């Protein structure tokens, strides 16, 4: 099978070309050891199947970022037979910079001159024949989002693979970019030293490696470090650098970049003819509004409101549908299967567990669709441009704003959305602070406690305060991380503002589908395992107690024997089941765990050491580690009071119980809320953090600092509150 690497700048339309080439036959994974997506697919050519690997979009191959390192390593790999270089024809000069580096590899190349429609609209023409002759490979004009030129591209690939055109033998090519006599002399000397180590030049052209060394590319230096000819190479490298810098008046990196741009500028002059000057483009006119000094921020915020509404309000509709589907499944299974441990596992463990994963699917897919849409139109870069000043204050990048805001709905997809942040340090800080943003699953906990312990007005203030506190902490923690763990990673902001383009619906849909399935696979397994574990902990050993089961059965029979009206009978039976459940729960492993945790929570939830029921908080908070959605439900079971308010009454029985019997006070309830805000939001989020950082260390840090910060701040609240005379 022939392997083809698809290389190009960000925003050159590479992904649409990839999709057009491979159709639906592709696979998305990760490059080994990193979180950069690896797309590959196949198509049939007359010479057999061709594997297409989509490289991360990069501006160069200097290996100074994760993306560049992967791209340069892969294109240089001997398994790559052919490089297809996608070029944005409307931005040819800068796009050709990458090409100058690819050409040094001396591999067969095909050039896809994409976005040709933009060029035509600007009234310019490009001579493909001349360009092809100068670059040494066939040039095909394409318009990726319309699929134009894709067949011609496939044909050109086939011609090169089949070797139909002997003039395209790359080994015969003279170097395309020449760096001037002095420079070339030094390159030759260095190449000679490199050839001393056959292992180095066996797979890579010596010239490519020599240029990388002069450029100071980290991976080139790394390769040489282990060579036996290292000393000779190092000596020559130092000598060459000193000579060139003294002679040509600039460092090698600058000289190389200048020569490459000289080449690409000359090429563009040769092949491109413009009619008339460039007027204001459509992008200029759109930007006059969207990044306007006065309108820019209001428009951005309005778009955020639309996106949030679409995701978490409209997304609610299918979400509720899925939830009621699972509720129906639960009821149906409970009614039909004989009572027992296995049924309980299925009905109370597996079905709600799967359900709790599936309900997130619509939200994730809509949010990822929105992100992909904004990215593909080019607006994402503008959003970062508009918000960067603010985000920079908290040590973050303009692109971090969208994940943080979306975290108010759900942290897990917010962490998935950090993929759009390029630099590692910006991305990791955003991932680490996102769990502090109060998500919608925490709201019911606040409402329960605020409603039980505060007046409506104070309660509302407390709920708002939790959200503000979350954002405030995200700012502080972000800044602290930037100044400590990430202080050495200074990343450039330098960001292209690509022309606005209409996204291709197919690409957006594919993206939504990919992100959705990744979520189900990664976060899903974690949530599912967690739900099963919670079921086990809260049912054993009570569920095996035959005497209790027999008791319940006898009580149920007694109720049925009374021949009450149907509604009343149903209610009584439910009460019995609820009491039975509570009995199992309160003697379960989870309850024992809650007792064990009592000393940990005592300073914040039981400062007077008078509460007998404080272990119940431990149970609820431990369950909340799996998902905040189950905190209220767990509290209802352990306190044996329903969380739903009866009709016509204000406040639920659970709120009444909490207020009157649990021993919690307004101050400790506030501490409970603060703890809920700060500690790990849910296992799904932990799963996403693990997936996006690919590191147990960072995941552990996230969980660890969350728990520590939650404890310290709620403890501080209690101490200061008591000092000020609150109870």
């Amino acid at each position, binding site marked *: 099978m022939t392997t083809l690497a698809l290389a190009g700048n960000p925003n050159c339309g590479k992904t649409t070309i990839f999709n057009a080439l491979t159709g639906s036959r592709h696979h998305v994974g990760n490059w080994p050891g990193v979180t950069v997506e690896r797309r590959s697919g196949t198509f049939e050519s007359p010479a057999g199947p061709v594997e297409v690997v989509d490289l991360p979009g990069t501006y*160069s191959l200097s290996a100074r970022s994760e993306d560049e390192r992967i791209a340069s390593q892969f294109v240089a790999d001997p398994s790559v037979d052919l490089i297809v270089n996608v070029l944005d024809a409307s931005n040819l*000069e*800068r796009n050709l910079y990458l090409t100058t580096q690819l050409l040094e590899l001396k591999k067969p190349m095909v050039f896809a001159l994409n976005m040709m429609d933009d060029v035509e609209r600007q009234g310019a023409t490009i001579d493909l024949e001349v360009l092809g002759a100068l670059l040494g490979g066939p040039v095909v004009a394409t318009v990726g989002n319309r699929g134009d030129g894709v067949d011609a591209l496939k044909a050109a690939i086939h011609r090169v693979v089949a070797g139909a055109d002997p003039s395209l033998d790359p080994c015969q090519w003279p170097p395309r970019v020449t760096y001037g006599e002095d420079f070339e002399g030094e390159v030759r000397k260095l190449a000679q030293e490199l050839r001393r180590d056959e292992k180095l030049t066996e797979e890579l052209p010596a010239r490519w490696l020599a240029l990388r060394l002069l450029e*100071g590319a980290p991976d080139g230096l790394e390769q040489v470090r282990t060579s036996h000819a290292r000393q000779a190479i190092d000596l020559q490298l130092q000598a060459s650098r000193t000579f060139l810098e003294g002679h040509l008046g600039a460092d090698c990196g*600058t000289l190389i970049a200048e020569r490459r*741009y000289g080449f690409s500028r000359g090429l563009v002059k040769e092949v491109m003819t413009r009619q008339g000057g460039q007027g204001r483009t459509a992008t200029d006119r759109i930007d006059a509004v969207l990044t306007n000094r006065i309108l820019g*921020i209001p428009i951005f915020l309005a778009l955020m409101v639309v996106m949030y509404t679409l995701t978490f309000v409209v997304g609610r509709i299918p979400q509720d549908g899925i939830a009621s589907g699972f509720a129906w499944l639960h009821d149906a299974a409970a009614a039909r299967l004989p009572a027992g441990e296995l049924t309980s596992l299925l009905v109370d463990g597996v079905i709600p567990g799967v359900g709790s994963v599936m309900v997130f699917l619509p939200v994730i897919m809509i949010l990822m669709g929105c992100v992909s849409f904004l990215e593909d139109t080019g607006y994402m870069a503008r959003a970062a441009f*508009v918000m960067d*000043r603010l985000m920079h204050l908290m040590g973050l990048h303009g692109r971090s704003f969208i994940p943080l805001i979306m975290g108010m709905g759900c942290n897990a997809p917010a962490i998935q959305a950090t993929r759009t942040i390029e630099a590692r340090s910006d991305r990791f800080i955003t991932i680490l602070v996102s769990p502090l943003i109060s998500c919608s699953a925490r709201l019911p906990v606040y409402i329960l406690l605020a409603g039980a312990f505060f007046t409506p007005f104070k309660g509302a203030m407390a709920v708002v305060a939790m959200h503000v506190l979350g954002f405030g902490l995200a700012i502080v923690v972000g800044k602290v991380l930037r100044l400590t763990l990430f202080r050495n990673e200074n990343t450039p902001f330098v960001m*292209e503002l690509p022309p606005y383009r209409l996204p291709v619906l197919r690409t957006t849909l594919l993206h939504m589908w990919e992100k959705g399935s990744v979520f189900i696979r990664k976060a899903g397994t974690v949530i599912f395992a967690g739900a099963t574990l919670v079921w086990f902990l809260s049912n054993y050993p009570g569920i095996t107690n035959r005497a209790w089961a027999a008791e319940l059965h006898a009580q149920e029979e007694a109720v049925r024997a009374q021949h009450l009206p149907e509604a009343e009978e149903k209610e009584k039976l439910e009460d019995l089941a609820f009491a039975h459940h509570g009995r199992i729960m309160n003697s379960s492993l989870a309850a024992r765990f809650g007792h064990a945790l009592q000393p940990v929570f005592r300073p914040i939830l039981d400062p007077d050491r008078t509460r007998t029921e404080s272990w119940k908080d431990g149970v609820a908070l431990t369950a909340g580690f799996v998902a905040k959605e189950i905190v209220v439900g767990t509290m209802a079971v352990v306190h044996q009071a329903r969380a739903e308010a009866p009709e016509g009454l204000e406040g639920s029985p659970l709120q009444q119980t909490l207020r009157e019997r649990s021993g919690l006070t307004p101050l400790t309830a506030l501490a409970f809320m603060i703890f809920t805000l700060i500690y790990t939001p849910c296992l799904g989020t932990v799963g996403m953090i693990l997936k996006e950082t690919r590191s147990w260390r960072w995941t552990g840090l996230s969980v660890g600092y969350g728990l520590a910060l939650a404890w310290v701040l709620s403890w501080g609240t209690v101490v200061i509150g008591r000092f000020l005379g609150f109870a």
Partner: protein
Amino acid sequence: MSHVGTRTLSDLQPGEEAVVTEVLAKGKIRHRLLEMGFIRGARVKVEKLAPLGDPMELVIKGYHLSLRREEGQCILVSEES
């Protein structure tokens, strides 16, 4: 080319154009700027500033790009070469 430029890119007002004379930044940022087209003699125009005054939008090599002002301060420019 002589080192006449003492103005930096960040000193330019929106709408002003200049020529890059030297990139003072070091390390990663220097290489990134070079790769993006900030080489000696390149024409660059300040298009506008972001609503909060930072970053700035530039046109270089026929495309649009944004830079933080602290990065712009590392690029020396002169009116004409």
